[in-house]
């Protein structure tokens, strides 16, 4: 099937590039978009396959059911997406390893660790793309909270650029991705200089059900900003609420993922070339170690080639960026005079409370989550821990439901005919309302990404290792807010409420940190414009740069910050010029 063949996409005749971008997700797509708009010639290397046929062709509304762009090769297929690694790296082919502390030895776990999509469009492809902005205090948490507010070794730092300077980039990004939302409904949101591009879409039925409990307890539920079309927008159709959004790519391009927004726009300029299934494995550096001279990559057929450009942008993800830097330095990362590359890895501290209802919630219809509240994330309120945004959601998928029930209830005797009956009666999509808090994960120097000393991928290349555990900051917020979340589902009418067990690591599907940016080369890896302190033509881009994780879904801010970095490269000192 040619649609997913690893053919070179975009302007295939280009052979000299102003910029080379490693990764085609939220960060890479944004960098490619901004640079190519300004005439820069950009090469994007993507390690994973492409499932967007004709991503580089102008829209032609030909297929029934499509608007404009050709339909992708996804579909409502839980098996291939959640169990057969269509877009996530196969942990047998590309494992990662995990340990909690260095005292655990080389590793505790090998395989599926913080597994993130590796495909054209990156992790944003399967995100349900809730896109709240960070709030102004998120950019100055060291000032608001102190560097180590609970004395657990955390290392908060203010961002070197603040909300006011980034606000125009937020607005630009919301229009680029197509964000639905309503201004003024979140009592804790920062100021805006313009409206959302489109109004909120259909509210899932769990939202008014949760609202019953939230209102009783004084919380404000609002439609969560989300990069999913509520109306036809940008050659893409409105969402029809098929119910297959949580952790799954969109079958009709209603979701504003990089493959149908930033990356596609870059390819359509004629200034961009995209090479899928091309794995960057080493940055070549000059003798002084201050200039990148090329990127060595493994091509789709397994052979190797080196690509060159004037500037290089790391946009894989915070773990794979570190892996590449470490592979390039023979185990010690390139550009690491600060000693901080790989440190301050943040995942968000996912906390999940379930309410059991006796009536039908039909949570398998809709976008997975449509509403949220933010009262648990007000850093300036020192009377409560700093948690995160809480979204109202459900448990929509069938195989996942069955696995969860057998795992949770099997020890209680659930098996055979009883299991069969339980699946009929206790249908999670109907009975379970889920409150998910994306709790802030404090930046901690002991939480790191580096290379595993012995484990390799199928190409024989050392894989990334996470050394990660939550600390007092995250656990205090969890302990404080879980009882409140249980009370909310009770007030909403649930018969039972309980916290679902945390995963290991207890992440929420978000990766941040490892290349924090700042003004001081002793305390940061990259400069305020994203450029490495040590290497003049190498840039960090999105989530890797985050000095702190906030407590909000990060994709909008990742895309926004990557745009800011690209704009800063073009217009040093005046990046907003790039938006005009």
């Amino acid at each position, binding site marked *: 099937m040619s649609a997913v063949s690893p053919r070179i996409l975009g302007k295939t005749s280009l052979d000299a590039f102003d910029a080379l971008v490693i990764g085609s997700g939220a960060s890479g797509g944004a960098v490619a978009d901004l640079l190519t708009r300004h005439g820069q010639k950009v090469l994007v290397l993507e390690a994973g396959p492409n499932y967007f046929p004709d991503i580089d062709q102008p829209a032609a509304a030909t297929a029934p059911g499509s608007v404009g762009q050709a339909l992708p090769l996804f579909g409502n297929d839980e098996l291939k997406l959640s169990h057969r690694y269509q877009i996530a790296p196969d942990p047998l082919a590309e494992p990662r390893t995990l340990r909690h502390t260095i005292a655990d030895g080389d590793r505790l776990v*090998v395989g599926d660790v913080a597994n993130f999509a590796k495909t054209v469009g990156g992790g944003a492809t399967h995100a349900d793309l809730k896109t709240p902005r960070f709030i102004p205090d998120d950019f100055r948490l060291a000032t608001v909270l102190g560097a180590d507010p609970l004395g657990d070794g955390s290392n908060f730092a203010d961002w070197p650029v603040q909300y006011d300077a980034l606000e125009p980039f937020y607005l630009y990004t919301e229009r680029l991705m197509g964000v639905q939302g309503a201004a003024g409904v979140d009592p804790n949101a920062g100021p805006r200089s313009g409206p959302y591009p489109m109004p909120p*879409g259909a509210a899932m*039925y769990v939202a008014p059900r949760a609202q019953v409990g939230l209102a009783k307890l004084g919380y404000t539920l609002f439609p969560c900003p989300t990069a999913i079309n509520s109306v036809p927008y940008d050659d893409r159709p409105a969402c029809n609420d098929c119910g297959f959004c949580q952790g799954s790519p969109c*079958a009709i391009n209603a979701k504003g993922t990089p493959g149908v927004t930033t990356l596609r726009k870059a390819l359509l300029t004629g200034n961009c070339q995209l090479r899928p299934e091309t794995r960057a494995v080493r940055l070549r550096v000059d003798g002084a170690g201050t200039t990148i001279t090329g990127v060595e990559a493994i091509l789709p057929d397994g052979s190797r080639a080196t690509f060159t450009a004037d500037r290089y942008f790391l946009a894989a993800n915070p773990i794979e960026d570190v892996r590449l830097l470490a592979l390039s330095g023979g185990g010690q990362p390139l550009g690491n005079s600060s000693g901080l590359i790989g440190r301050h890895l943040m995942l968000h501290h996912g906390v999940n409370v379930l309410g059991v209802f006796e009536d039908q919630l039909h949570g398998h219809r809709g976008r997975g989550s449509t509403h949220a509240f933010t009262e648990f994330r007000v850093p300036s309120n020192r009377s409560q821990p700093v948690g995160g945004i809480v979204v109202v959601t459900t448990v929509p998928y069938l195989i996942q439901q069955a696995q969860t029930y057998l795992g949770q209830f099997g020890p209680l005797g659930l098996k055979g005919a009883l299991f*069969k009956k339980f699946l009929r009666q206790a249908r999670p999509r109907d009975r379970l309302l889920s409150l998910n808090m994306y709790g802030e994960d404090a930046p901690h120097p002991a939480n790191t990404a580096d290379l595993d000393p012995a484990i390799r991928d199928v190409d024989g290349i050392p894989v990334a290792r996470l050394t990660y555990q939550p600390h007092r900051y995250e656990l205090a917020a969890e302990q404080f807010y879980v009882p409140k979340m249980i009370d909310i589902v009770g007030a909403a009418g649930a018969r039972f409420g309980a916290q679902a067990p945390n995963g290991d690591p207890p992440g929420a599907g978000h990766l941040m940190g490892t290349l924090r940016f700042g003004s001081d080369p002793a305390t940061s890896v990259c400069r305020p414009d994203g450029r490495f302190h040590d290497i003049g033509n190498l840039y960090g881009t999105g989530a890797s740069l985050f000095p702190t994780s906030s407590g909000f879904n990060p994709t909008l801010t990742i895309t926004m910050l990557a745009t800011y970095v690209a704009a800063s490269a073009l217009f040093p000192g005046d990046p907003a010029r790039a938006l005009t």
Partner: protein
Amino acid sequence: MSEASGAGGVRPSRRLFLQVLGALPATAWLSAGCSSSGPRYLTDTERRVLTACADAIYPPDDTGPGAAELGAVDFIDALLTAFEHDPPRIHAAGPFSDRNPYAAADGSPSSRFPPDQFLEYLPLSRVQRAGWQLRLYGSRGTPGGGPNDAVLGPVIGLRDLLRDGIAQAIETLTMPIDQISDEALRAIYDFLPDDARAQVELLVLQSLFSLPEYGGNRNSGGWRLIHFAGDSMPLGYTYIDPATGAIRDRPDAPVIGPETQPDPDPMDDETIGLFRAATAVLGGKAFY
């Protein structure tokens, strides 16, 4: 084989299994779940054991068929022989099946249906292919072995894992397998080695609730048994009212409003009791 606790709780002892089998009449058996016409890896005996295991996990009863009749064994064999096709049958294509129509201009179901695009399969990338080769055939069946065999030991492929696991379980039988009734043979599931048992459980659940194109969930029967209407695309559940521009629910399947259909299977005391017990284990609250 291990007699320790497995994924589903405390496992019976080998002695108990022998006692159970011994108490059952040695009736002739009828083969089940052998309708696949594609390539086969599993032998008839292996298929029979997996049929029994599938029905142990999800048995037939008066509410409907069990996992075996719904195609669990065909689903498993299709995965084990995925590489006998080009492209390998791992990732069905999509995006749509032919089970739902396109929406008409007013949002109602039209008379036009897409073809079933899940009947085609997507090519695997070089790295994906390497991963699935290793998963199905193991280090032993992969040129050069697995990348971490020296550190972690060889990868046991799913084909070998199931074959060897079934053979070990059969060794526990006290009489020839063809003298054991289908229903009695279901007890063999508890005597699979832990690693094979975990894989069989996962595969059976996948077979029940994945797209029917993968070989299980025959005629969408797995979905129907849990009152799931199935994949909804390209129709979806909402549409934009062309007259007003407002987003509207499908009246038969609302997103925004409450369910319009009566509850097909309300929770009974036993189901609620399980939730009560799980809530206690998790340290949660019962509100009434």
